[in-house]
């Protein structure tokens, strides 16, 4: 009886310890959200060889007679993204809350290694939401300092702008943090980020940036982004330029003849007959020029070849980049 009781007490003790470990209390400050800076967006840029972190946060003003929230812009610098965030946090009277960080911004000043470091840092910082949007901007500081148009912060407003653009143009950026991480793990290591531009007192999506192996490879306009999505089979339905596409699906095939890679794209789209030829022309032009011009597999063809045609993949794997760059891309546009 006594032994049973001791066993019970011991098992209860074990459960409690286990629960403490599971709850992840160690090393973190667990306070209410009103006693923290709620980070809505965090951006990283390179300033004179050092990483600068710029965060847009919301803080509750407890001293005010009215329960109000204030938007603040915080800055910190360091050799690495982690150090810059630490520097930023050290200046504050309240801890930072990253759980609701909606947007991670990268800047044109970041080089390949730094982009990789930023993504690694975001992955290591367990509090940064995996669903956060990764966005490109040429001037993060200016963008975040603007007055938000329809939300409490620019960060949360950007989310709305991206979602709206995606549904209007029919494009899919797949730029959420987990989606970018998934693309990084693919053979092609290519991902597309929406690019935000601050014009006067307003900001807008100016297009997109194609990153390959963490390096910014191409800047696309909104129209080019839509064409890019049609080619990469990430287009849903929407309208761009003069085209209105109800639905689209891109079928991929590849072959190799005389040491040359042939890529056949068969796009089945529901589109008005009159504009089909013009769209086909634009698609061919975009595919060939972008593929040739940028020294990279910006359409992530390697990933599709690897997944769909192992025979071809084995032949091109040693000189993958060269094959893809010189590939002959033919596009057929069919009605659904």
């Amino acid at each position, binding site marked *: 009886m006594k032994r049973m009781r001791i066993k019970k007490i011991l098992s209860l003790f074990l459960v409690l310890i286990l*629960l403490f470990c599971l*709850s992840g209390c160690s090393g973190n400050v667990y306070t209410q959200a009103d006693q923290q800076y*709620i980070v809505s967006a965090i951006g990283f840029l390179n300033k004179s060889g050092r990483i600068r972190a710029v965060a847009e946060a919301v803080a*509750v003003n407890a001293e005010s007679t009215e*329960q109000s929230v204030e938007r603040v812009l915080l800055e910190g610098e360091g050799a690495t993204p982690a150090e810059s965030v630490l520097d930023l946090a050290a200046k504050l009277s309240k801890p930072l809350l990253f759980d*609701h960080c909606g947007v991670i911004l990268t800047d044109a000043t970041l080089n390949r290694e730094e982009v990789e470091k930023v993504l690694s840092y975001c992955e290591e910082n367990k509090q940064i939401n995996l669903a956060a949007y990764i966005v490109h901007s040429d001037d993060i500081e200016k963008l975040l300092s603007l007055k938000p148009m329809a939300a409490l912060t620019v960060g949360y407003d950007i989310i709305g702008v991206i979602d709206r653009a995606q549904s209007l143009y029919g494009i899919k950026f797949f730029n959420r943090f987990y989606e970018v991480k998934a693309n990084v793990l693919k053979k092609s290591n290519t991902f597309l980020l929406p690019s935000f531009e601050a014009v006067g007192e307003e900001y807008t999506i100016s297009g997109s940036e194609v990153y390959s192996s963490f390096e910014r490879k191409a800047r696309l306009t909104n129209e080019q982004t839509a064409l890019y999505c049609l080619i990469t089979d990430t287009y849903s339905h929407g309208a761009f330029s003069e085209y209105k596409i109800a639905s689209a699906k891109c079928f991929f095939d590849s072959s190799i003849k005389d040491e040359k890679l042939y890529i056949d794209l068969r796009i089945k789209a529901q589109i008005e007959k009159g504009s089909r030829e013009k769209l086909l022309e634009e698609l061919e032009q975009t595919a060939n020029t972008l593929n040739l011009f940028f020294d990279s597999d910006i359409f992530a063809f390697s990933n599709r070849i690897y997944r769909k045609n192992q025979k071809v993949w084995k032949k091109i794997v040693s000189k993958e980049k060269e094959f893809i760059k010189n590939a002959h891309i033919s596009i057929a546009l069919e009605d659904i």
Partner: protein
Amino acid sequence: MAPLTKDYSSVYLTENLDENIKIIKEIFKKDSTLRIRRIKLKDNVNECAIIYIDGMINNEVLNDSVVRPLITAAVDIGEKGKIEEISSKILFVNDANKAKTVADMLRAILYGDTILLVSGSSVALSLNTKGWRTRGISEPQEERVLQGPREGFDEAAMFNLAMLRRKLLTPDLCAEMLRVGRRSETIVFICYLESLADKQCVKELKKKIEKIDIDGILDTNYIAEYIRPHRFSLLKTTGTTERPDVVAARLLEGRIAVIVDGTPVVLTLPYLFSENFQSDEDYYLNFFVASVGRFLRFVCFFLAVSAPAIFVALTTFHKQLLPTSFALSVAQLRGGVPFSALIECLLLIFVFEILKETGLRMPQSLGHALSIVGGLVVGQAAVEARIVSAPMLIAVALSGISGLMIPRLKGVVFYLRVAAVLVSSLLGLYGFIALMSIFVVRVFSIKSFGVDYTASIRNPDFEHLKDTFFRAPWEYMKTRPVFNKNIIRARDEKDED
């Protein structure tokens, strides 16, 4: 030490009337309500005495049925069998029992009967002249229904038994009488339907009640605390009701009822966990309506226990699980509150409990004013003064209101709610889930008088669930709940054998 009634069990009456009266007088020497009246019978040979307690008898019955016949009757009673002669030829009383010992006599006097002693007889007659006042039949306040019978039990066990008998016109209904309490000698009835109840369970219950050694029994809870299994568990393993229709329904399911004199509350057992979510009205309303109510009660139990705990866990440990706009709103509304979420939550829970208790004990007319002042004015003022935050107030109020839907679990809900808040504030949702798991394991391990506490939800089939999460139409409730092997399972007698 003052002698108890049972101590007189071995003291027999003598043939000497004066001596018998002397014994009674000695026992009641400090009781000025005892009345003794000596009457000379018409034969001028025999003398008798009537003994009763003033206020407990019906004077009219005593005068018309006992005193007048004794004085006026010209019946010659012989030397032998005087008591029988008087009982059969003179008295007009419907119930006259013999009392041979002083203990028998005392019990009868104290229960409102009149004792008739006759000179030369060592046996007394206990005459039914009970006349104490009772509250009368009224609707139980705690178990009100919109539709269905409205009568409730009274404080008199005999009347309660009669009300029960009126519902079950069958000789199968057994009512075994016991006296419990060293000094109070309270009358307790164990009622059951002989063909349906588990004999072993009845036997064990009787044994347990007989074993109770206490000065007095003033309510069924005295007995419930002695007999119920898992005495220190928060969960009820015996049911209580003040409604005869509910007791009748439970007896028809093969359960046992314990009626205690002096209280309208009747115990029923065995008791299942699912009964906490049943309402008496469920069986009088359309099954669709009743099923909605039943389901809501389960939902409300979850809300009552977990709403503040989950809110504390989410806002302290798992802020990422909150939608961003809600998190911002919570942060904004909480701004300036000086207490931690735990203190804030506990404070509100205790204030709510105080308001609830005050509302219960207050006269009904003041109750409305209290709910306005307490709930609205104090609540709003507390939020405006930033003592508590509005979202926390909403979470605790939601929990409190949900708890009112399941009054049979109010004790469990309170303790579980506080425990859940404490654990959640320390360990977040992990702690909450662990606590709930322990609670579920505990519920499944309890037995009520040999019956699994969760018998109705152990097997998730229609047969078991038909009266658990929903109430099936009567047409489909062909079998009684699964309690024991002795009962006749089919309600439809054709299906027997």
